[in-house]
């Protein structure tokens, strides 16, 4: 009988913990995965888009043409690239947020539908 009590408590606690773990995995670990996915896309994108480097060189002349045209063109070309790159990152971030939103909603939808339809 004593055995049954100890084991029973352990089983109940483990069951409760498993349920808690499911939500932690789904939301906390899930968010972490999405975030690292976004960081990966960002770092890959920077290799080509170079938003940070373009910002650093925003006021440098284009192709070393150290005249008014070179400086103006350099500024606008880089500004366009910075804006374009930023837009790309914003879109990428939006995509990750949306997909994560869907992911996060899935269990909640199941619960909501399960309850409302049952009632």
């Amino acid at each position, binding site marked *: 009988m004593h055995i049954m009590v100890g084991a029973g408590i*352990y089983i109940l606690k483990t069951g409760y913990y498993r349920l808690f773990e499911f939500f932690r995995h789904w939301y906390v670990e899930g968010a972490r995965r999405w975030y690292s996915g976004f960081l990966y896309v960002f770092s890959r994108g920077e290799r080509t888009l170079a938003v940070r480097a*373009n910002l650093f060189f925003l006021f440098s002349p284009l192709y070393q043409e150290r005249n008014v045209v070179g400086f103006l063109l350099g500024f606008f070309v880089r500004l366009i690239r910075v804006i374009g790159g930023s837009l790309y990152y914003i879109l990428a971030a939006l995509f990750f947020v949306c997909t994560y939103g869907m992911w996060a909603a899935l269990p909640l939808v199941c619960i909501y539908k399960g309850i409302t339809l049952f009632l």
Partner: protein
Amino acid sequence: MKDSLIPLEKVTFHRRIFALSHTERVFTRIVFYICFVVCIGLTVALLLSDVEALRWWGGLLFLILLDHIFHLSSAHYRVRDLFLGRVPGNNIGLCIDKKSLRILVAAFEKARLQKGDLHLALFSELLKKPSVVWICERLELDVSQLRKDVTEAFEHSDGEQEKAEVMEILKNIALYAGAEALIHKKDVIGDDLLFAGIVSSPSSHLARIFDMYSLSQKDVSIAISFGVALSQRHLPAVTGGFAKTLSRIKAHRVNRTLTSRPTPYLDRVSDDITDVVRSGRGGFLIGHDTEYHQILDALSKSGQRNVLLVGEAGVGKEAIVHHLAFQILSDAVPGELFDRRVVSLSLGRILSGGSDDIYTTLQMIVSEISRAGNIILYIPDIHLLEKTQTREGVRLFDVLTPLLRNGLFPVIGTTTPHLYSQYIDMNKSLSQLFERIPIEQIGEEDATRLLVYDAVILEKQLGIRITFAAVRAAVKLSARYITQAPLPSSAQEVLREVFARVKRERKRRMVKESDVIALVEERSSVPIQKASTHEASELLRLEERIHERYINQDEAVGAVSEALRSYRSGLSSGKGPIASFLFVGPTGVGKTELSKSLASLYFGSEKLLVRFDMSEYQEKGSIQRFIGSSDGKIVGAFSESVAHSPYSIVLLDEFEKAHQDILQLFLQVLDEGVLTDVFGRKIDFSHTIIIATSNAHSVFIQESLKEGKDIDTIAEALKGKLSEVLRPELVNRFSRIVTFKPLSFEHIRKIARLQLTSLSKRVHESNGVAVSFSEELVSFISQEGFDPSFGARPLKRAIEKHIVSFLSHALLSGRLSKGMRIEMFLEGENTLSFREVV
């Protein structure tokens, strides 16, 4: 904001499963299996239900089951999170994966039931796991024997411990394992890390077993990184990049931020390292952190930004430059270096380009670089600028200096310390242009980490496995015995060659430590393997063997024999040479002869006797001939000899006569076993026996002996007297001062017998005549060759004068011919003759 780590005292270890008894654990396991099956059935039933609400609940259950299956064997939390304080209760137990947790439970149970040592129980359980067996095999451990020893030790252990104590032990093991997880960037604690953990914190029972198998935490840790590297799909390209699927090298003539201009002319005479690194070839760097940051600082500052990397060939200068290019590609550099190209200039291509006017060519290149605005010019072997001349006799350096002086673009040059002294340091206008950054060889630990990658790449390429013990030996032995090249190149070279050898022997598929030892032994001529039974017996009767060809001086013979025995049994101090002796005594008593005998008998050849007559180095300037001149034009006879024969006897005749500056060098040699030459190169003396001889105070020795003083008293008195000719700190650094006794007539007679036997052998080998000598003749020669002031020195002359000259006459006149066996004897007082004997 940087995350801070929690203090180790806050880490706890608890899992509910340890609170259950064995029966409870079995019971709960059965219940869980049943629940799992029931849940699957329930999910299927709910999903197939006609009621929509139930289908939604079935969906949720399905997600929970999926999550459970996905995390079936994983840990709850990552080790990194634990140290960042993100794990509930800072419980390290939640970072152990489920399979490893089962091992802990099994060991815990075994130790409690059988009242044995927990460490041994856990180690025994771990030895059943394939990942641990893999590590042991790679460490060249005999796993089945190890299992037997552990089981036996467990059966004899008495380790009944309180539960709290047990949990504390488990926590410690898990903590060490957690630290290893951070090092190897592993998320959770698995079998291999528990293995590392237990090796780091063994019980006294287990520590004894680790000592038996020479198993250390460091080795296990690097063996784990070996496993991590093997499991990686793409490896850093340290050995030519063949382990990774490489992309084509694409030229990027204009940078991403469009600040640069194309450089078509430069491209023809250079290689773009940034493009090479972008394609996956190189960029990986282990060690050299300080030097790399020095380069970054120098290149990012305003004004002249030229750096000169000065280091021996193979030390990793090019790897640093490749790493810089790699970091530039990742924007992991200061803003001033953003989006730059590292371009390696090929002087050969410039010169072979056929252009008549090199000056114009170089000006065009420099002007292109200046206009491009993003080039970091890399000039390997920059001393060639000083050495190379155009057809008109103009040095390339004279052409480039004014252009470099403008500081329009940063330049990285490389050269060796020797060539730096010879070509650059002398030329102030060139040396002032650069910030000199010395590149030292990396440490053994870094070299081992690097070689692990090399080994894995070679293993994958050649299909031959390598034990980690072999990798470790390649680094350790190369650093110690192959001193001509620095780490890591010396170790990489050994590794490649040993792989090639094993591949040639088609039957073998494994590179072992013994293969590496054999190769290094061959290359360095230093005996590295433990003394074999034959060698050990030879060492034990070394005195006897020396006396077969050497007479008297028992103290000196005993001293050198003892020194060699302690060296080969691994008991020498480790610092300094094998041994260093100051042989003091009158001339002709056998000081040099003993060195020769030892070189021939033990070191295998008299060629391994590196001999210097120190009376030739009496002037101040002679130090240049001894260790080389700072401009590199004079090669140091002493430093080069030992660099090429690191395992030898160094004989320094008439030591006291050398100039004080030279004697000063021996303070470091005798103390640390190292000589730093003019280029800062460290020459290893740790496998040499240094014998310095001196005739100083011979009269004192002779008189003291006549007075009947014993040799130890004389040696002690001599020590004080020697400080008149040698500085006391130098005298005290010798491991032993050996006083040689003058030779008596009886000794000379024995030496005469030895020398005549040796002559007889020579005559037999060269002319086929067997010669023996009568006792009267031996006595006559000994008499002729005996002079108490000169020891055995006149003996050689007496043999030459009487015996050699007689034999050569007889051979040339035809009185002696091949196949004859003769005995030489004395006829009358001093007339020699011979008779044939049967």
